């Protein structure tokens, strides 16, 4: 079977910082992959390379059969790949519903009525249909992040990328976001999740990956990686996180 995301030996430099040092990774349809690792290890950079928010310097990424090279291909890939950010990045000048419908009408060329129906369905799915007419800054962090997930889903992506979706949230709001993500995983969405939420990883992930200094150090099912790591650096990192 063809992987839906094929990452082959990519390198990324920020000036002198060698942020990704030859990362290769294949992800298959329906897989949920959790990426962990210390700060600065290149997790965000890897995720951002997948939808080309970041350009890489060497190597190759193929998403759903589309090679990331030309500008056209990048936009094609971006409509297939949804992204959820640590800081939510909702559009503050648009209502919650408009946040979810804008790209549908502008990019997917759906008519506004249809976009609205889909938008409301998605807001119901993430559990906040009653906030449709509210502006994002009036919502709690957890609610904002759920809207951000709905906004990405509105494009009918085949893949969802999450970059530390819960680490800007107050502790009592983390679970409501993880629940939405868990439901998404159960539906068979292909997901790449940068997160240190071990509970979520155990419940949802097929694979956990540890990155350090721009490389993938170890890769295993979450239970194995968290309880029986083989690599010394993995052990060191886990001992700090699991304190």
């Amino acid at each position, binding site marked *: 079977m063809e992987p839906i995301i094929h990452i082959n030996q990519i390198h990324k430099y920020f000036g002198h910082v060698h942020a990704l040092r030859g990362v290769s990774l294949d992800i298959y349809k329906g897989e949920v992959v959790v990426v962990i690792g210390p700060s600065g290890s290149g997790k965000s950079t890897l995720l951002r390379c997948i*939808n080309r*928010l970041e350009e890489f310097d060497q190597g190759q990424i193929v998403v759903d059969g589309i090679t990331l090279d030309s500008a056209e291909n990048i*936009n094609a890939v*971006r*409509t297939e*790949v*949804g*992204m959820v*950010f640590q*800081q939510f*990045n*909702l*559009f*503050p*000048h648009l209502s919650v519903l408009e946040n979810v419908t*804008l*790209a549908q009408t*502008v*990019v*997917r060329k759906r008519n506004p009525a249809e976009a609205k129906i889909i938008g409301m369905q998605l807001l119901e799915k993430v559990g906040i249909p009653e906030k449709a007419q509210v*502006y994002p800054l009036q919502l709690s962090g957890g609610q904002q992040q759920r809207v*951000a997930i709905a*906004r*990405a889903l509105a*494009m009918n992506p085949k893949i969802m990328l999450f970059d530390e979706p819960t680490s800007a949230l107050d502790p009592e709001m983390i679970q409501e976001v993880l629940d939405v993500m868990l439901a998404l995983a159960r539906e068979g969405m292909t997901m790449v999740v940068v997160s240190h939420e071990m509970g979520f990883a155990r419940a949802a992930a097929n694979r956990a990956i540890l990155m350090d200094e721009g490389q993938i150090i170890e890769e295993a099912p979450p239970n194995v990686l968290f309880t029986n790591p083989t690599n010394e650096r993995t052990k060191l990192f886990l001992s700090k996180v699991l304190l």
Partner: protein
Amino acid sequence: MVNSKNENNSKNGEKKGYSFFFDRWWLLLFGVLAIIVLLVIFKPDPFRRIIIFVYDGIWVTIFTTVVSFVLVLIFGLAAGLGRISKNIILNGMATIYVELVRGIPLLVQLMFWYFAFPSVIQEVGNAFAISSFATYRANPFLMAILGLTFCYSAYMSEVYRAGIQSISKGQMEAARSLGMNYFQSMRFIILPQAIRVILPPVGNEFITLLKDSSLVSVVAVADITRRGREFMAANFIPIQTWVMVALLYLVLTLFSARIVTWIERKTKLER
């Protein structure tokens, strides 16, 4: 100073009605208007005569300013986008344009457009035997508007640039990751937010442009200032003439400032 006062008012929750539209700054405007009216009524000679004489100049000033400003809004945005562009050529062109224009006094630029630029076209016409170029004559209005637009678009590009850069990078990334292209992201996400940020400086630019438009009087445009000079030359009453001209400008600038504030509040209350 004007702005900080208004911020306070809107924070106090004045939402609708007279107190919203008519604050104390309107009193200043009405005061100036009252002085003009009183002068005209109680001292018609010379004040009524001055007003009648410069009246068409008022419209020339307004017309020149408004037309130039609309063009400045468009070209300033283009130059501002050039300044933040990652394309080296676009960025370089925009940067050179802005830095050059900002380093040359507006008066000198206007002189160039009115006196030198037509000569350049004529020379070119002579050299290449293009008769419509060789007999080219500068239209003062056109050259004044061209000069003001060329100069102020450079200033305005910096306002746009600052406004766009004040919007967090995550907004553009979120828009792009939804598949919107650069222009869609600008149009639907970045500019609508930036406009709220840049309204006060844009209003400022308008008022400064209104005042600087008095410089077009040296390139044969019969605006308020030029009409004032003509009146003075014919009647030798400098004090009264320039007091009246100053009062007329004050009415225009104070009124513009009120309109700017009003628009600012309207856009703020939208949500």
